């Protein structure tokens, strides 16, 4: 099972667990409708588009409404802490929530009790709490952007708003920040640094970069980082190595932006809608996965 957990901007939506499906621009889970928009919605939409294409089981999702006050976040932490051993996901991807270091520590303790440890992926504030709790090295994959990589590189920062050195573009300084993040043990085993150049970093070593196609107008579009994380999660679930999943996700996201002919005013759902066409045209070439029967 692939399990994705995160908050959604649906006020008063209760903690909801179930297999996800899609209907138009919405995701359906246990009778709840969640828009495919910036955040966990975009991430789940991308993961679902990938598993559907690969004819794999759809992601199981654990979602709760949270407008920033933390109630839904706390419900997600508690449910995961109590049930992760029994759920035994093969891939556990954590996304938007109110970062809580104490709860993240409790969750990581429980995950260590799993008979088979899940591949652990974090993006957005779940990555913030993992780093701030000193647990980054317990994670397999982080997917930060440039500003978030500056945060990982700063040993004292508990949030990207409080970093000492900010990097807005991931240009020539990025390798220094990546090195610092690993030196301070604030990086997961694999980093996919999203930006004008996507860096794929394994155990501190930059093993690949992705720069093409160059679609700079994707940067303003809310959710286009979330879609990369969703695809990485699904490709890992499909059986690809973490670095292979990251490289393909980075390429596919860019290509979807090109297919969608994006402008800064484009909505992320238009990018997600391109994934099946991108996979059909390029996935065999990029991955060696030349059927849609999955690679598990």
């Amino acid at each position, binding site marked *: 099972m692939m399990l994705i957990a995160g*908050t959604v*901007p649906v006020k008063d939506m*209760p*903690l*909801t*667990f*179930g297999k996800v499906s899609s209907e138009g621009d919405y995701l359906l889970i*246990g009778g*709840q409708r969640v*828009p495919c*928009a*910036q*955040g*966990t919605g975009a991430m789940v939409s991308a993961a679902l588009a990938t598993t559907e294409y690969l004819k794999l089981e759809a992601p199981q999702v654990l979602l709760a409404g949270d*407008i*920033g*006050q*933390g*109630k*839904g976040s*706390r*419900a997600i932490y*508690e449910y995961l802490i109590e049930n992760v051993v029994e759920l035994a996901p093969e891939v556990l991807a954590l*996304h*938007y*929530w*109110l*970062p*809580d*270091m*104490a*709860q993240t520590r*409790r969750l990581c303790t429980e995950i260590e009790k799993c008979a088979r440890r899940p591949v652990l992926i974090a993006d*957005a*504030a*779940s*990555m*913030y709490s993992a780093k701030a709790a000193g647990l980054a090295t317990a994670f397999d994959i982080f997917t930060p*952007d440039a*500003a*978030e990589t500056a945060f990982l590189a700063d040993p*004292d*920062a*508990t*949030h*990207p*708003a*409080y*970093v*000492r050195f*900010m990097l807005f573009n991931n240009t020539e300084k990025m390798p220094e920040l990546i090195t610092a993040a690993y030196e301070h043990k604030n990086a997961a085993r694999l980093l996919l640094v999203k930006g004008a150049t996507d860096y794929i970093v394994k155990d501190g070593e930059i093993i690949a970069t992705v720069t093409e196609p160059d679609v700079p107008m994707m*940067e*303003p*579009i*809310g959710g286009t*980082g979330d879609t990369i994380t969703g695809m990485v999660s699904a490709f890992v679930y499909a059986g690809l190595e973490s670095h292979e999943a990251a490289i393909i996700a980075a390429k596919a996201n860019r290509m979807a932006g090109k297919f969608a002919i994006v*402008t*800064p*005013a*484009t909505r992320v759902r238009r990018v997600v809608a391109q994934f099946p066409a991108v996979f059909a045209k390029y996935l065999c070439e990029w991955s060696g996965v030349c059927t849609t029967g999955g690679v598990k």
Partner: protein
Amino acid sequence: MSLLKKGKVVFTGGGLVLFEEVQEAMKAENVLKKAAYPVRLVAPPPELRKGCDLAVEINLVEQTGIERLLKQRDVYYIEIRPLKGRDAAILEIVRVTDFGDWLMVKAANMKLTFEKKSGKIVNTSGGGCPDIPVMHAELLDKHVGEAPRPADIGYTLCALMLDRALEESRSLWKEGEGA
């Protein structure tokens, strides 16, 4: 399947609210606890001592909502500081990228993009706190001058950074109007 679960509040900390007077610190603790914010009264480290010997420790990420609540309840504080990285301050630097018909304004991990001609917000991106997708929905298609301030409706540091981006966008829009 919907699941009803207990909502256990766990204290993470990481931020300090500093006060001139002990009474204000105690008042703040009372106000914040009533609003279900996990907080505790602590002695500020000597280097952060700016007034009284009492501070309120908060979950730093909740700074935006806490600041707003203290102001609403007339609780007077000096400032909110991170407990780690004691010389750290909120990032004030913003960066602007010109996409032709659109301008993108970045503040830390947050980005806001508006159309130059109309002033309409066409996208927000970045961040990872739960109020950010809410802000995204609230700000899209609104004029930069009329959109709600994330600092007024958000709760987290991500919202505060988005507020910085909106503030800069308003200035840029006004400059553009005058040009």
